[in-house]
C-alpha cells in the first residue's frame, strides 16, 4: 500500500459524556473494500460517524488524501469526497424518491449520472415520484446507496446495508457493492453479517470496545475463522 486514501489514527469519540472510541487505528488504500466487524456496541457505527464528523466530540487524526479532517465540520468533510450511508438509511419522507436521489450535492466530478443510478436500481426509476419512505426496506436501502453515488465522492461509508433485508435483496446488494468496487469506489463497510462481509471484502478490521484489535485479509479468512468467530461471538 502506497499512500492510504483514508488513515485513521488514535481516533477517540464521545457522545455527550460517554466515551465511545478509545483510539481507533486503521487505513484504507484507494479502491479497497474494507469492513469493520465486531459485536453490537463495539463502536463500528461510531467510527463511521466520527470519520464523517457527526459525533459529539472527536480527537485523534483522520486524514483523507493526506488532509486532516478532525476539527472540520461535516459539510466540509463531505466536500473532500467522503459519502455516508447511515444504518437507519435516512430517507427523507418529505422528499420524493428522485428528490432524495438528487439531494446530496455533487462535490467532485466523476460521479454516476442519474441514468447510471436508475440502470443500477431500476425499481427506483419506476417509483421516482413516490414519497421516499413509501418504498420497501430493500428499495429504501438502494435509494440510500444510490443517492451517494452521484456526488463524485470516492470513499463510501456504508453502515449495515443488509440489515433487516430478505436474503435475495442481500444478494442483490452484494452484487451492487462488488460492481461499485469495480467502478473504482473505495468502500468502508460496517457489517454484522460476517458471511456477507466475507464475500465482498479485501480486508477486515475487528473492532472491540472502541479500538481496532485485529486485521484479517480475505486470503486469511479461512484459517482465521475460529479466531474471528470468537471475536464476533457467533
Amino acid at each position, binding site marked *: 500500500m502506497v499512500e492510504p486514501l483514508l488513515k485513521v489514527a488514535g481516533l477517540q469519540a464521545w457522545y455527550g459524556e460517554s466515551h465511545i472510541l478509545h483510539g481507533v487505528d486503521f487505513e484504507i488504500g484507494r479502491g479497497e473494500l474494507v469492513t469493520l466487524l465486531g459485536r453490537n456496541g463495539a463502536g463500528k457505527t461510531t467510527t463511521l460517524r466520527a470519520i464523517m464528523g*457527526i459525533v459529539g466530540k472527536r480527537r485523534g487524526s483522520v486524514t483523507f488524501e493526506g488532509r486532516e479532517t478532525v476539527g472540520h465540520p461535516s459539510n*466540509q468533510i463531505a466536500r473532500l469526497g467522503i*459519502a455516508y450511508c447511515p444504518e437507519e438509511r435516512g430517507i427523507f419522507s*418529505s422528499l420524493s424518491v428522485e428528490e432524495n436521489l438528487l*439531494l446530496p*450535492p455533487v462535490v467532485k466530478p466523476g460521479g454516476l449520472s442519474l441514468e447510471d443510478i436508475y440502470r443500477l436500481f431500476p425499481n427506483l426509476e419506476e417509483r421516482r415520484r413516490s414519497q421516499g419512505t413509501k418504498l420497501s426496506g430493500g428499495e429504501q436501502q438502494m435509494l440510500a446507496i444510490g443517492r*451517494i453515488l452521484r456526488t463524485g465522492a470516492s470513499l463510501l461509508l456504508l453502515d449495515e446495508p443488509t440489515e433487516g433485508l430478505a436474503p435475495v435483496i442481500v444478494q442483490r446488494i452484494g452484487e451492487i457493492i462488488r460492481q461499485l468496487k469495480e467502478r473504482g469506489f473505495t468502500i468502508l463497510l460496517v457489517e454484522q453479517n460476517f458471511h456477507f462481509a466475507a464475500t465482498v471484502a479485501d480486508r477486515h478490521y475487528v473492532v472491540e470496545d472502541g479500538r481496532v484489535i485485529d486485521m484479517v485479509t480475505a486470503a486469511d479468512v479461512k484459517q482465521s475463522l475460529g479466531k474471528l468467530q470468537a471475536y464476533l461471538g457467533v
Partner: protein
Amino acid sequence: MSGFHCYDIFAIPMQAWFGQLLLGLINGAFYAMLSLGLAVIFGMLNVINFAHGAQYMMGAFAAWLLLGILDVPFWASLVLAPIIVGLFGVVLERLLLKRIYHLDHLYGFLLTFGLALVIEGLFQWKWGSSGAPYPSPIAGGWNLGFMYLPKYRGFVVVAALAICLATWFAIERTRLGAYLRAATENPTLVRAFGINVPRLITITYGVGVGLAALAGVLAAPIQQVSALMGTNLVLVVFAVVVIGGMGSIMGSIVTGFSLGLVEGLTKVCYPPGSNTVIFVVMALVLLVKPAGLFGQTK
C-alpha cells in the same frame, strides 16, 4: 317572512355579506403571509418566532421612514424594506437565536417574545404610539355595486396570493426547497452530505423575517404605521398557525385566507363575536385534531 328579500340571507343585505367577505379576504391575506413566515421559520429553526409581529411593524416603519427621509416610493420600499428587515433578522439569528436551538421550544419563544417587547418598546419610545399615515400608492377604486373597493386593497389580496404561492413553490418544488425540507427532518445527515446547514438556517430566518416585513409594507397604506400595529395581529396569526398545523406551508396559506373569511362572516352575523371567533375555532380544532388541520403528528 314578508320582509325577506331574495338578495338577503338571514335578513342581512347582500351588500353587507360581500363587503365583509372582501374585508375578511384582505385580513386573511395578512394572516396567510404572516403565518407562512412563521411556518417556514418553525420548520427549519424549531423556534416559535414571537418577534414576527414586531418584524412586520418594522417593515411598515422601514417603508414609512424610507419615504419620509429619502423619498423612496412605495414600490421600491416593497423590495428594500424586506431586505433591510431581513438582514436585521440575519443578525438576530447569528447573535442570539443560534445559541438556543438545542434547547426546548420554550426558550426560543421566550427569547423572541422578549425581543418583540424590546423592539416595540424602542419604536414606541422614538416615534410614540399614535399611528402615522402612509399614502396609498394606488388611488381610486372600483364600484362593485355592493361595495366600493379601493384598488389598493384589491392589489393587496392579489399580491398576497402571489407571495404565498411563490413561497410554496420555492419550498415544495425547487432544489433549495428540497434542502430545506430535508434539513427540517434530519439536519445532521443533510450536513454530512456537504450542505452548509447553519447557513441555510440563517438564510431561512432572514427570508421568514423578510416575509413579515413585506406584509408590513403592504399593510402600511391600509393601517396606520405604529409601534404596536403587530402586537394584536400576531396573536391572531398564532391562532391561525395552531389551527393550520405548525410547520405546514400550504396549511398556513389556506387557513390564513379561510379564517379571514370566517372572521368577516362573523362580523355580519354576530358582530360581537368577530374578535373571538378565531380563538373559538382554535379551541375546537385543538379538541378534535391537536396537530392542526394540516399538521402531521410525529
